[in-house]
């Protein structure tokens, strides 16, 4: 689906220094029954966020008013496990536009870009610096600059560049998606398919 384009994002961030956050935690399977892409944000991290009686768990970061923002910062191997794109929808629907980690699972990274979330992979050291900066001052902002491919911690000025291929970058900057691209080359695909 078309999504908002992405250029430079300046925002506070929500820290989640847990490793191997899997997509079953991001959105548990029992919330995959919708047939439309709506309302998934309410169930983002459902079982970490709410107890058995649907009461918010005070110790979970999304329930802590100290932290907010459009950037989610996770530990290593973020988004492992199930291929459910619902995980990316939930993160987007909740209001995040960017996820930062020192390592992403493959399918999640692809799904994120396909729905308009920018996955920013940084070094483990830089990730540590981000967590430190937020711990020191929860209001400290991150600047994610897609055209320049850099991420900067405002409070310390520390900056690192990140990788993204030119094609995906172009799509994100313009809010285009792969389906637009593929529709434009259908005759080439039809010709290829004859021999397969």
């Amino acid at each position: 689906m078309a999504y908002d384009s992405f250029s430079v994002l300046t925002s506070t961030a929500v820290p989640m220094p847990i490793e191997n956050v899997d997509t079953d935690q991001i959105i548990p399977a029992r919330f995959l029954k919708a047939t439309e892409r709506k309302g998934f944000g309410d169930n983002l991290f459902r079982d970490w966020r709410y107890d058995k009686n649907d009461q918010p768990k005070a110790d979970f970061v999304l329930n802590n008013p100290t932290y907010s923002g459009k950037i989610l910062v996770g530990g290593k191997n973020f988004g492992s496990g199930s291929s459910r794109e619902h995980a990316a929808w939930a993160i987007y629907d909740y209001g995040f536009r960017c996820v930062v980690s020192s390592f992403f699972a493959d399918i999640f990274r692809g799904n994120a870009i396909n729905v308009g979330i920018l996955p920013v992979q940084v070094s483990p050291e830089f990730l540590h610096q981000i967590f430190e900066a937020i711990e020191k001052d929860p209001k400290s902002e991150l600047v994610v600059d897609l055209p320049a491919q850099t991420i900067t911690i405002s409070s310390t000025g520390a900056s690192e560049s990140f990788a993204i291929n030119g094609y995906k970058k172009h799509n994100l900057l313009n809010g285009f998606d792969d389906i637009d691209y593929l529709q434009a080359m259908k005759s080439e695909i039809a010709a290829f398919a004859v021999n397969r």
Partner: protein
Amino acid sequence: MSNSPKTLFDKVWDSHVIRKIEDGPDVFFIDRHFIHEVTSPVAFLGLETRGIGVMFPERTFATADHNTPTINQHLPVEDALSANQLKQLATNSAKYGISHWGLGDPKNGIVHVVGPENGITLPGFTIVCGDSHTSTHGAFGAIAFGIGTSEVEMVLSSQCIMQPKPKKMRINVNGVLGKGVTPKDVALYIIAKLSTSGATGYFVEYAGDVFENMTMEGRMTVCNLSIEMGARGGMIAPDQTTFDYIEGRELAPKGADWDTQLAYWKTLKTDAGASFDEEITFNAADIEPMITYGTNPGMGMGISKHIPKATDVEGGVATYAKSLDYMGFSEDDAMIGKQVDYVFIGSCTNGRIEDFRAFASIVKGRKKADHVTAWVVPGSHIVEAQIKEEGILDILTEAGFVLRQPGCSACLAMNDDKIPAGKYAVSTSNRNFEGRQGPGSRTLLASPLVAAAAAVTGVVTDPRQFL
């Protein structure tokens, strides 16, 4: 010959690239596409919104499996949301002319079980599905991997996806497996060694004696679990075992077509001297029956061992402590003897006939432990029929087990088959994440043999004592 040596993966990948985008992904052609009720509705909705259709409906196959009940399948599905997803799968398939095997259809079953058993999965194919365990089909020498819903929409509308070519890894396991060591144990062993992110960015080829001597069903179990080490998929070069499995299946090539295809399939192997970005070798003799103790599939160990200390494992200490706390286990605990409340045999990892034969080999002549609730769920109706024909059902019934109807069931617990909070389940499925088998459930992943031993003793037990 100027051609440089190629890997199996290169041969299949390169022959499916329609266009290479500079500083971008490859436009990659998909031969076969499987869909199910959970990850397809939004994709069909996307087609409607854009006003585009399905380009090659004959290349897509639909089956209902993820949220289906495993009892009373002849009755209407009670859960309204599940019923709606199943209805949409049927309506969308009919509308676009896609083969649909709904609930009750003799071909119905888990997508990764029915593809191979009906001859849809073939060597050299590219296969995708909105389910990460699509890697299963790599057992046939296909490139098969899971995709997200946006990509399901891409494949429906253009039969292509946009993918950068992954790096290549070869995992060799040589030697002979010990008694009671199954393909599931081989896979859990590799994942424990590599961790759940150890193969991220790679496509794996499995090679060596162990895989060459493995049955097709065993190969499917191994390839199925490739995703749990972070790999996009895994594959095994097709050989006589593969060809014998495929020949005669309903939708497999026949006659002259078979001969042509077979000649091509025989070329699908890694050339001598072809290079991999990474190569790892293990020794079969080092592998024992495995079990997991934590909340990701990489947290596995030989069943006779003790839970590792945080200082001995890679990764964050806090994450490790959180995981053991969830499981109610402590560092250095022995796993043998731990209480088991539930046993689940089934899923696309271990829901094929060989898995039930293995399970039956231990429960035969014994009784299910009274306090254990067991869910015995075939991967498909064809498997269910085999269980009955081979007399396995009688063995199960005599031992106090009930055979349920096919579906994903407690693998992801989208239907009623949920492990209650705090309870321990020995499960032959593929994921032990927090809440995977129901909110608060605690999962111990293992082989059908370990599951059987736990079912009859009621505690974690080394199956080798029964063999």
